[in-house]
């Protein structure tokens, strides 16, 4: 049971990290890099 919880927590971290990738991407405003 503890194994499952730990594995789930690990996966959740990496899902958050992937979401964080796209959050960083979306920070980019228009006209910044002309």
């Amino acid at each position, binding site marked *: 049971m503890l194994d499952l919880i730990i594995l789930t927590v690990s996966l959740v971290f990496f899902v958050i990290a992937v979401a*964080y*990738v796209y959050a960083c991407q979306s920070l980019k405003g228009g006209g910044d890099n002309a």
Partner: protein
Amino acid sequence: MTSNGWLQIAFFFLLLLLAAKPLGLYMARVYERKKTWLDPVLGPVERLLYRITGINPDTEMRWTEYGAAMLIFSCATLLLSYAIQRLQGVIPIVRLNPQHLAGVEPYLAWNTAVSFTTNTNWQSYVPESTMSYLSQMTALATHNFWSAATGMALAIAFIRGISRRESKTLGNFWVDLTRGTLWVLLPICIVSSLALVSQGVVQNFKPYDTAKLVEPQTVTAPGADGKPVTTTVTTQTIAQGPTASQEAIKELGTNGGGFFNANSAHPFENPTPLTNLIEMLSMFLIPAAFCVTLGRMVGSPGHGWAVFAAMSVLWFAGVATCYWAEAQPNPLLHGVDQRVVQMGAAPSPGGNMEGKEVRFGVANSALWATVATDTSTGAVNSMHDSYMPLGGMVPLVNMMMGEVIFGGVGSGMYGMLILVIVTVFIAGLMVGRTPEYLGKKVQAYEVQLSMLYVLIFPLIILGFAAVSVLAPSFGTSSLANHGPHGLSEILYAYTSAAANNGSAFAGLNANTHWYNATLGITMLTGRFLMIIPMLAVAGSLATKKIAPTSVGTFPVNSTLFTVLLTSVILIVGALTFFPALSLGPILEHLLLRAGTSFS
């Protein structure tokens, strides 16, 4: 301090200088997929790996794809490491588990898997009594290669971000990972392992040996009912294992996880002054070479050397301070104790030898401690907890500066490049012009993400350290020392985890649910949540035009740039933590001078 000690430190740096340029140029060729002398051997292996995994090496990735591939790879290998540790007791290969060690318990297995995935190699476990040879090789040593190659790939992606013009891509993560492992890490490790074996580092699958003690020892310890029980010990178990192969990548990949609990203070990991030199050089080799690779790939060798100079200045400041602090006698040791070991006389130079190996002495212990914490290695050949307060503060400060003084393989370079962006931005503010870095305009997006990278680091360290200090039941209860030394122990643990260093100050029992869980979270955050903004900066820089050099361009290959970069590192890194340091090692130093120590 002795002239002999300084000569050894100078000799180490000279060897590093000689090795950095050829390796850096070679690495540039490897990552640019140009011809190298190892191609006839490694080319077919590389092509076979791509065929098996279905990877098209010519496919380029945007920074988001590059980051996602890195995250998927790290997640998968983390889970693999976890599974191997949990199952080591039931995997039926007796030769690889001759001590019949049981599966590692869940919290510890997770902490260890996270630790090795993030290149931290923090060890809450005692390897000799916890990890089978199978786990050491397949769950830990493999990660030493993978996490190092991942860091190198990310640094190369950042360098491409600087050097490419109006490009949406940063390369292919899988190709960079493969080439870094095959062309850079493996060949050096094979040579280094053989050199270590020649000096006496063990490499076998034998069960542990048992030796009969010449002088039996009487030991008193609490029994099952809590009452003291006295026993006479007549034998000693001597652990064995495939050490040399793990030792080589442990240092080269700036990983640092010891095959034995005593790490590189153990005579089977680091038996002679020559192995000590080889291992210290291994730690600095790739991070130093990366400066040359940077200069080559961005077309400005002078810029690479300017970054190298900033790293070298900070390294020298650290080793000089640490050597000076450890060469002093402890003011609280008087009389006979002081006369014997502290003041120094032929043939002993004296100084604080507690926790240090006689075969290395003060100079090579201080140099090792500085090198291992400048880089993200975290291996130890002496016990940092036994250092004088200011001597112990040097490793702590090195890590607090974000592991950019040469730093981890790859991670040191991309961490430094983020600080270069901040430096260029500050220089731009000073002269009132839009900052440019090698012809790329540095704008709001890059600065925002660079500051995100810079701020995550102290946030996680100071946040968890504060909670631990305020929690007697699960935080301070793990401490061996109280007062400012205890604060240093907690601060050191979280700094080491966030910086992905992995060295332990000792004195803190971190194998508890609280520390295993929070240090694990700290390691993950310190690695991945800092990598992502870094990659975003790289991706953004890659899309930009390269403006021609003008009179307003801030030269990044000058002495002024080196001075400014060094100042930014000191201000951003060290001053952020100054309040915590003043309550820890600095206060302890002052109290020690006043005659107070903390046990």
